């Protein structure tokens, strides 16, 4: 294969002092003599109080398999090529016709969900007899042979940075997780894919790659965790240059932790679960937990303006980032200090955050960290209806006492949550469940077709958590809310990670779906929820969808002035000749409805190519011009040519 045990061990030892290093390295590549000079270069100022990590190259073996890393270069070793997540984990109907979640990775793994079958049948009109299975194996013949820029490849080889033009590797990096992308893969259809995948190992590798790309006019598309849902990773079909996917997954080290200032410096390819796990080992966390955190990367978060579930305590990515290093065709952009706030003109971080890979590659990030919370407690509240629930969330936001996470699911999602309840182990639990249901619906008079649930997560010092909890439950009570226990809350959060696997099950049975999000002022939350759901239902009807779709929503984040709302939408596509087209039309209409109702184009998924058409209206002509001029300056030859955003 490709990974040569080569030079780049040398010049690239540290993250700091990089720009000078970059130009030196150019000379190294051209002249053997300079290698020695490179050897002599040592990091200038390594802060003695921090844990330093080196930019080590892969060992000299050509094998590229993982070395204890969560994400190996060959993602296909552990992940599905045409669905969500780990290969060993999926929903299926076992021989008894019961839904089962396979694998060992999750709490729900290995469990049986007896109610799921009925829920699927009732909600979508599906039938287990009618399957729509995916193409099991990717046939290489379906993938176009790579268009290689020979000169680029030659020079790349000389750098020793591993790369591949294997079909599987390329297909893996040609998509995110939009419905149309996965649907096409399941049908074995592959469109334009990158011609080459390259795995830089550190910042300087990236500098090198970008230089070469500029030199040879090659299109670069940065790739982090591959969890994009905005068509952000799709290769522009009109791109005629050779496309190189720059996979940051091997740049996944924590370079240092600074306990005095509570910051940490990481390579941008680290995925969320590794970041948390490794920090936890030192007693810290970032608290940044997007739903995709198992797979999404730090660089991806920065590039898309990500938001985490516990942002109420820790903040969103823009609140967490102290310093970013991004490699652009014009060179490296970075700030010169670690000050907590600056008044130095417009914040250049805001050109980087949300740039969606159009300006460069984020290579390193300094981020705030917090000591791990002493105590965590889940909770849940049942409300008689969604309106009351929203009113409660609004009040919580007004009093600024939101727990680490507070999410309000509508009735449809509440029912869906029930469908995912694993088989109860004892008579006693099932009896208790029955009793609870009886209490809520009969004694308290909640209509099971209206009630909805809020899930809560509290974090912090034990006493404060308990105090906080009481405050929130008191507010909930004012809006008719009844505490519904820790289990319900915990299960709600656990489902977050599991739910993504469920779409693959649906797709096995003619059900396609997607989630999408927005943010909206408080006074419009109810209106937007109602109108978007009804719009989805109406559009499906108009477009010949036989069975009424699932249209459901939840408020997932609260802010002072508004909330983030998540919509789920899925339908049974039997009888439709072009289901993806129908799906996209409905999704488009839903976004129009969101915008008409005062919602934003995106709260945290980003724009990508999927929502590009609304961008100008979202930021005005002048705003668009500003962004364009930045792009024109930073990347005049459109090396970062994924064509997102603008």
């Amino acid at each position, binding site marked *: 294969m490709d990974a040569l045990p080569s030079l780049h061990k040398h010049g690239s030892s540290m993250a700091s002092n990089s720009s000078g290093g970059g130009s030196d390295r150019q000379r190294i590549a051209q002249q053997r003599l300079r290698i020695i000079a490179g050897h002599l270069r040592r990091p200038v100022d390594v802060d003695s109080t921090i844990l330093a990590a080196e930019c080590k190259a892969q060992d000299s073996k050509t094998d590229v398999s993982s070395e204890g890393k969560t994400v190996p270069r060959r993602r296909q070793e552990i992940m599905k090529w045409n669905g969500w997540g780990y290969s060993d984990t999926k929903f299926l109907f076992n021989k008894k016709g019961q839904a089962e979640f396979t694998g060992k990775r999750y709490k729900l793994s290995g469990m049986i969900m007896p109610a799921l079958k009925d829920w699927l049948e009732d909600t979508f009109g599906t039938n287990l007899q009618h399957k729509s299975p995916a193409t099991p194996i990717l046939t290489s013949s379906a993938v176009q042979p790579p268009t290689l820029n020979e000169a680029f490849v030659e020079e790349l080889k000389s750098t020793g940075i591993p790369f591949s033009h294997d079909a599987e590797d390329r297909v893996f990096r040609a998509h995110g997780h939009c419905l149309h992308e996965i649907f096409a893969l399941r049908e074995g259809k592959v469109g334009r894919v990158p011609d080459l995948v390259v795995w830089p190992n550190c910042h300087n590798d990236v500098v090198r790659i970008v230089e070469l790309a500029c030199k040879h006019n090659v299109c670069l598309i940065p790739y982090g965790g591959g969890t994009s849902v905005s068509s952000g990773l799709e290769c522009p079909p009109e791109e005629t240059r050779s496309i190189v996917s720059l996979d940051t997954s091997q740049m996944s080290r924590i370079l240092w932790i600074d306990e005095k200032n509570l910051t940490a410096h990481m390579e941008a390819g680290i995925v969320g679960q590794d970041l948390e796990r490794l920090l936890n080992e030192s007693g810290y966390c970032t608290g940044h937990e997007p739903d995709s955190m198992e797979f999404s990367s730090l660089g991806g978060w920065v590039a898309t303006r990500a938001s985490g579930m516990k942002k109420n305590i820790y903040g969103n990515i823009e609140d967490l980032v102290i310093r970013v290093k991004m490699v652009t065709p014009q060179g490296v952009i970075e700030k010169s200090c670690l000050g907590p706030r600056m008044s130095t003109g417009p914040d250049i971080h805001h050109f980087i955050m949300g740039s969606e890979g159009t300006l460069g590659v984020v290579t390193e990030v300094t981020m705030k960290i917090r000591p791990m919370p002493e105590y965590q407690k889940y909770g849940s509240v049942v409300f008689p209806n969604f309106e009351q629930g929203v009113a409660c969330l609004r009040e919580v936001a007004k009093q600024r006492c939101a727990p680490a996470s507070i999410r309000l699911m509508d009735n449809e999602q509440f029912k869906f949550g029930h469908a995912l309840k694993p088989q109860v182990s004892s008579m006693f639990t099932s009896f208790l469940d029955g009793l609870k249901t009886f209490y809520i619906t009969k004694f308290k008079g909640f209509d099971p077709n209206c009630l909805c649930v809020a899930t809560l997560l509290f974090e912090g010092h034990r006493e404060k958590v308990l105090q906080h909890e009481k405050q929130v439950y008191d507010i909930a009570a004012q809006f008719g809310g009844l505490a519904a226990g820790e289990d319900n809350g915990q299960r709600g959060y656990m489902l977050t990670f599991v739910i993504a696997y469920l779409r693959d099950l649906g797709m096995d049975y003619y059900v396609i779906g997607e989630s999408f999000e927005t943010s909206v002022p408080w006074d*419009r939350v109810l*209106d937007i929820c109602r*109108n978007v759901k*009804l*719009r989805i239902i109406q559009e499906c009807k108009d477009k010949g969808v036989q069975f009424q779709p699932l249209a459901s929503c939840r408020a997932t984040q609260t802010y002072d002035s508004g909330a983030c709302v998540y919509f789920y939408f899925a339908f049974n596509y039997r009888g439709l000749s072009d289901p993806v087209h129908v799906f996209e039309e409905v999704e488009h209409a839903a976004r129009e409805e969101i*915008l*008409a*109702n*005062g919602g934003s184009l995106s709260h945290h998924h980003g724009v990508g190519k999927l929502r590009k058409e609304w961008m100008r209206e979202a930021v005005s002509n002048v705003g668009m011009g500003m962004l364009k001029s930045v792009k024109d300056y930073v990347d005049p030859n459109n090396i970062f040519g994924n064509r997102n955003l603008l």
Partner: protein
Amino acid sequence: HYNQRDPMLKKRDDFEDVLEERRNSSDLRYALRCYTPVLYKGVPPCKSSMLKSMVLQSDQLHYVISQVSKETGRKTDEVQEEASAILDEMAHCQQLSTVRFFAFTLSKVFKSLFRSICVNEEGIQRLQQAIQEHPVVLLPSHRSYMDFLLMSYLLYTYDLTLPVIAAGMDFMGMKFVGEMLRMSGAFFIRRSFGGDKLYWAVFSEYVKTMLKNGFAPVEFFLEGTRSRTSKSLTPKLGLLNIAMDPFLKGEVFDVSVVPVSISYERILEETLYARELLGIPKPKESTSGLFKARKVLSEDYGSIHVYFGQPVSVRSLAEGRVNRRQFNLVPRHIPGKPGEDIHSFVNDSAYKLVRAQEENMVLKPWVLLASLLLQNQAAGPKEGLPLDELTAQAVWLRDLSRQYGAFLHWPDQMTPSEVVSSSLSLHRGLVRICEGKVQLAVEQGLAATPEEKLLNQAVIVLSCASYRNQALHVFLRPALLASAIHTASSTQKQEVFNSFSFLRNMFSNEFILCPGATVQDFEEASYLLVKTGAVQVSQQEVVVTEGGHRTLAFLIAMLDPFLQGYQVVCRFLCEEATETLTEKQFIPAVRKFIIKHLLAGGLRYAEVLSSDLQKNSLAAFLRLGAVQKIKGYVGFDHLECLVGPPSRAQNTTL
């Protein structure tokens, strides 16, 4: 290009007579029967006290109250109280018992007045469906006081949610009746409240609260008032604006608007309207007056047809027309003047809806007879039209009107002469048959002065004209084209179009002509005339065919009274109104002028005496800039005569 469906193929529902059952079963049992209407999202009707407090506590009203208080220096409490008083004056307090009372009484009244009340039941089913899905606005046509009682009666009969109805304050003059109407679901709005912010806020919030929550269908009259002429009136936009607002601001997913066409074979207020139009003052609505009107109870008013049209989704009307995002940047409780785009959207929608009302208006044979008799009368001092000739003409006109898409109820099981004589007998107050000849019942020799005689004549003519007017919408566009062909200086298509466009523009205060739809109307008119073989239209020319002259003559004659009317008003303005004139003086002065000319024999159409026409023409001249309004006065700078090449006339705007 004009590619609308052939109007003849327009599919319409069948009718059922609701009185039939009333004649066969107990009215009392009917009035007391179990009433369980389907509800919007299962929302039960809201108690009026609850509704009032919702309105008073709304953010919208709070905002305006504090604004008014700031502006006037009055205390908020005081303004709040005023708002509350306005609401008390306005609010309905619908009670089922009153509705039952009306159901009982009206059954009796209707049975004695009308032969039948026919309703399209499919329309009722559609309405029932619509009520469950979205808030509903009912838009009946308005030709009679009877309209809204009739509407509520029908909704009760079909077990539908009773509407709340916007009614003019004039009813409140009738103490007892006003309260009764209030208890049956009417709410009262002042006729004018120009700059009264508070009033507007209370009023719009009241309507929106009912609509948003879907408590009950909201009913109002797009035309604003009863049409005295049976022509549809230019729609008023205020309430429609309010009704569309919750959708535009995203407070509801959609609003269904249901146009309802109520057609009376004989209008109760027939001659009353004629007198009013002639300036014989309108008796103020009073309870005692209503009882005096009892004599109407003994007469035969034929049948009523009520057609519940296809519900129109405001959402689909707005699709691609309105950018709803514009409402996202200002808190929704702050009142704002709708922008130009919203105004034009509401205006276009209003025209569409009035046209939908017109299209489903049932026309009786008498409407055609009235048209023919009026034309005959205007043609000269003849002894009337021989009955068999009238019948033959009526059959010809029946076929023509059907080809033009009229919703004509011509009893095909009867012979044409039977149809004609039964129509004539129902309207014997307006026609006379003398020695086999039919003519209008214009009285001879009874009146003291020639002027009185003329006015008496005019009452009959205007009454007849009001029936002819029911069919105007069917013939309007072809008639405009026919007149355009007639007046154009050549057969060049462009010339004809210019002439058409001028006439259409001129008459857009008179008839329902959607703004900006000139080309569409021209194409529609050409299509109809070509289809019936009356004209041939080539790329360049519009030529009348040999057989087309009869149709064209009829059509031209249809429009002629209006054309003459506008001309005479024009002449008045040129000849008499040399100095400025107040608006109040205008009608009496122009009337005097017209009477003079009618008596002198220079003018043939007594219907030009209609104040409706005079007002409309003045409005048109104002719009066209031929006349100017100065500080409440109407100032006439200069006016060129309208006869002559249209293009020149259009350029005379000052």
